[in-house]
Every structure is written in C-alpha cells, then in structure tokens.
C-alpha cells in the first residue's frame, strides 16, 4: 500500500491531502478505486483536478504492458547459458544454467550439493572470468577448499588469486538477514557488491537451512519470508540477467520416496530442479564419491533422466547415461 503524500504529483497539495484524509482516502489504491464524483462532492474539489491526479498516480505506480515481440528480442540478446563445469550436469540442464532463472539442487546430507556449488563458483570465476556472488548460510564454504579446487584446474598462482577475488561471499545465518541481503543486492545492484565486475551467477547455499526452522504450525511469517526471498531472487535473476542456483534439503514423501523440502509453495519457484543422491555401488566398503543427479522438473527436457558423476573429478564425467561402466584408473 502506497500512502498518499504531499507533492507526490502536481496538484496534490496540503489542503487537498487533508480533505482526502478526512474522507478516509489514505493510500494511492484507495484514491484509484474510489468513485471520483463522490469524492469530489465530499471534499468539494473539482472533478477534473481529481481525475488528472488519479491519472498521474496511476501512471507512476502501475506496471506497463510490454509487447511480446519486444520482450522476446530483449530476451534473445540478454539470455546466456552458464556451464556448470560438470558435463553430466550440463547434459541434464540442457547445456547449463540459464540466466534469468532459478535452478534448484536438492539432496540429503552428504549428497554433494555444496561441492557442486563450489564447482560452479570455481568454473564461473576461473574459466568464464565472471564474478560470482555466494551466499553461505551453512558455514560450509572455506577459502582453502576453493583454492584446492582452483589448484587442480590451473597451476598459475596469479590466476588462482584473481579467480578467488571474483567470488564474493556473504555469510548469514537467519531468514531475516537472508531477505535483507537479497533485497539489498537487488536494489543496490550487484555491481556494487561485486566491486565493478560483471556478475553472472548467484549461488545461495542453502535456502532451506534458514527458512525451514520457521515453517510449520500456524505461523504465516515463515512462508512470507520464504516468498519474499524467492521474489528477490527472481527479480534479481531477471533484471540483472544472472543465473541463480539454490540448494534445498529433502524430506520423505507420502509414498516413501524422497522429495525436495520446503513444501508445495516453494515448488513453483525454481524453473529447474535436480535431485542429488549417493550411489551405493562399491562393495569395497570405502565411501564412494559417485553421485547421481535426477532431473525432476524442467521446461526443456523430459523429466526423470539421470546422470552420474564423480565428485572428485567434476570437470570430467565418469559414466555415460547408457550405464556402461568404465574402470578409470586415473589419478585420484
């Protein structure tokens, strides 16, 4: 609700404002929805003046329709596909993360969500030489791990430092700071936060860690915070043409299978959803680094296609989707 203020538009002076308040018209919405003839009689103001004020306020606060053709042209020129650095994931995502959209990675503990996010951040900052904004709510991000991943890609120390500088980390641990941080990023522009570099990816790891403690019961505030954070992420993705990657935990569904958490209201927010799971195949007893990714929601590919990859060697895929196993004796 936008309250009426003096000087908001030409013609809305102090006297008129006072008489409108006396007639119980406090906000722009009230003025626009009221019967102007009625109001002009009650406040003894000319109908013409009210009509022109209404028209100016409407023009100031409405969203304007855009032609589909113009929107499409704009989208063609601004959409980019950001490779995740992991060929198996890229195959699932139809070549990579699309800018202007939210992609969700869900999985249980230890399924590799954070590792995949690190991989994406490293790939974008090193290979694509673009800035990354990383919002860490779990405390799992350490610079030494990022450096380790960078060192396995390139041995040039300067390049490693430059790539690290392009990853901007925000650490927050509750839903209110998440919402405020995302709103500030959206308003102030990502450019400011990234110190001038062009941001191509925003990673939030993880959304559910801060939101799910507030859900449940009869409180509405948790759901509202979740939707506010989602709206901030979406508008950021669209307005600044960035790819947004978020992570989510999993819960047991009614039929016994795993499904992404945060409920039905969150499920409409991401455009693409991937479920990560551990692959228990090795009988040797050592912990496997194999993970399987299943596409559970997509507007571009048929759902439920699966890909497997090795966390240790993210830039190379170990298995193809046809299931033929190749014994790879390369360095660990």
């Amino acid at each position: 609700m936008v309250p009426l203020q003096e000087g908001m538009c030409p013609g809305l002076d102090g006297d008129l404002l006072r008489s409108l308040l006396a007639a119980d018209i406090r906000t722009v919405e009230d003025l626009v929805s009221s019967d102007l003839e009625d109001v002009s009689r009650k406040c003894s103001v000319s109908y013409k003046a009210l009509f022109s004020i209404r028209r100016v306020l409407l023009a100031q606060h409405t969203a304007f329709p855009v032609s589909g053709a113009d929107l499409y042209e704009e989208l063609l020129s601004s959409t980019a596909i950001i490779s995740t650095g992991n060929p198996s994931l890229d195959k699932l995502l139809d070549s990579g993360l699309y800018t202007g959209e939210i992609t969700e990675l869900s999985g249980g503990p230890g399924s590799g969500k954070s590792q995949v996010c690190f991989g994406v951040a490293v790939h974008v900052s090193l290979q694509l030489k673009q800035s990354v904004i990383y919002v860490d709510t779990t405390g799992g991000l350490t610079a030494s791990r990022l450096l380790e991943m960078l060192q396995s890609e390139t041995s040039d120390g300067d390049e490693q430092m430059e790539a690290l500088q392009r990853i901007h980390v925000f650490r927050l641990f509750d839903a209110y700071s998440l919402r405020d941080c995302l709103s500030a990023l959206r308003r102030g522009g990502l450019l400011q936060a990234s110190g001038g570099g062009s941001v191509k990816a925003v990673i939030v790891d993880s959304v559910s860690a801060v939101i799910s403690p507030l859900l449940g019961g009869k409180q509405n505030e948790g759901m509202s915070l979740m939707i506010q954070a989602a709206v901030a992420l979406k508008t950021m993705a669209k307005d600044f043409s960035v790819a947004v990657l978020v992570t989510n935990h999993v819960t047991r569904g009614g039929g016994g299978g795993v499904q992404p958490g945060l409920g039905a209201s969150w499920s409409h927010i991401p455009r693409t959803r991937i479920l990560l799971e551990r692959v228990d195949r090795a009988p040797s007893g050592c912990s496997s680094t194999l993970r399987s990714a299943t596409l559970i929601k997509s507007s571009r590919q048929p759902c439920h296609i699966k890909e497997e990859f090795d966390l240790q060697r993210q830039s190379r895929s170990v298995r193809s989707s046809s299931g033929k196993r190749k014994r790879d004796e390369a360095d660990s």
Partner: protein
Amino acid sequence: MLCGGQLIRLNELLARLEARRCLKDIEPRLFSEDEGPQHGEVVELYGAEGTGKTELLYHLLCRCVLPEAAGGLEVDVLFVDTDYSLDMLRLVSILDSRLTSAGLEEAALRSSLSRLLVVHCSSSSQLLLTLHYLETTLNSRPSLALLLIDSISAFYWLDRCEGGASISRQEEKLSKCAELLGRLLRDYKFTIFATCHTIRRSSSGSAASCSSTLEADRPYLCRPWQRLVTHRVLCSRQEAENHTAGGSREEKRRQVFRVHCSSSSSRTKASRISSFCATDAGVQFI
C-alpha cells in the same frame, strides 16, 4: 456524456458495446460441447507443481495469437505475470513449430508475438493498480479478448502475513482485485484464464485416501474470487503406466497429465476428463 452517475467518454462507451471475440471454441478437447468459456467467464487452472498447468496455458495462448492459417483465433492477449514465470523461449518454440507445420514464414512469428502484451506485477497492490490501468488498455485495443493471469495465488502468503490476525485484512487486496475484475468483465466482456498453485501437498501413494486429494484441491483464495470463477480445471499427473519391454523408450518416458474440467456456470453443470502429454511442439491431447 453522463451515464448512470458515472462520466463516460464516447470512445469508452463504444469499446464496451463492441463485442469481443467469444472464446467458446478455444479448446474443444478440454471443454465439453458448448461448455467453453463465453463472454465474461473465468476459468481457473488449479494444480500442484509439475502437473502441466503452464503448458496448458501456453497452448491456449498460442491458440489465441496464431493467425487463422495456422489454426489460431487472431485475438490479442494480455498476460499478467505475477511470479516472473513466463518462459518466452518455450512459448516461442511452440509458436515456431506450429507455424512451420502450417508452412508460414518468420514474419508470422513477429506478428503473432505482437498480439501478446505482457505485464509484470510484484505485489498485490501493484496488481490492483495495474488492473485499474487495464481499463485504458481495453479501450484502446478492441481485439483484446483474453486476460491470462499466472498466477493469481502468487501473493497469498505475502498478503496473509501483512494482514496479521484478521482474515478480512489478509484477503482485502485480492478481494478488491476480484471485484474490479468482475466489474471489468461485465463492462467489457472478455475472458479470463488464471492459474492457481496448491499450497498443500497431497500425500501420494496407492493407499492414499480420496479425502487427502480433496483436501489439497479445496479452493483457498478469497470468496469474491471464488464467486467469479465459472470453470475449474483440476490438473494432475497420471502415474506412469508400466509399458511392456516391447514399448519404445520414448513412450516410457512420456509424462501424461490428467485434466478434469468442471463448469459451474449458470447454464449447466458439466464436467469432463481429458489427458494430454507435453511434447516439443506443445500440448498433445490423447
């Protein structure tokens, strides 16, 4: 010119009197004989995530903006996008495949897209103000016959939290939008299609009782909106059938969506169930 206590300009009066294209025949496979949405009717597409609502919406949108040579109705459409979910690339790929199968060239794509107007709203206050501004758009475009809202439930939780403890304050903004839409429908006689997301997950599984799905399908938006809705389309995902080993892999992967349309308009109470699957070229009814 004064008319019933409200000042109306002559061109506005003409815009109201001129009949807009009736969309009764928008999709005969979805709505039963003569049950399609007529002037001033509202269709609500309701379903959980991944049940094909957006695909259906794009299918109807394409049907409206395509030229008659490609099987369309050539009417203008206004798309109100409340949760930034409009996927223009997917829409254009559906339009493109329909136009190429009808043998039309590139220019037809641009002219079809120019019949589409898109508005983004980021809060229910902005939605209310935009709907007020809609009157000007309706006056200037007599061929605007369809308003698509995706989705009408996007601000539900935000309004609920803002309204505090009083339910009437929570529902106030959406009620005002619904009342305004009702007045516009009566005056200008266009049609509305709106999607509504579920807020509760229905427990799946073969042992799931009917009552849990009914619980999830119960309308939860405010009364003025529910009164406005004349056709309700419930979308759900059909459990993938087990094909025999002889069936092709492509068939096995095709997800089939089930649609149950019920109309509660004053004419008759009818309902119809249809199924479709989503292909690269859009929705294909089975």
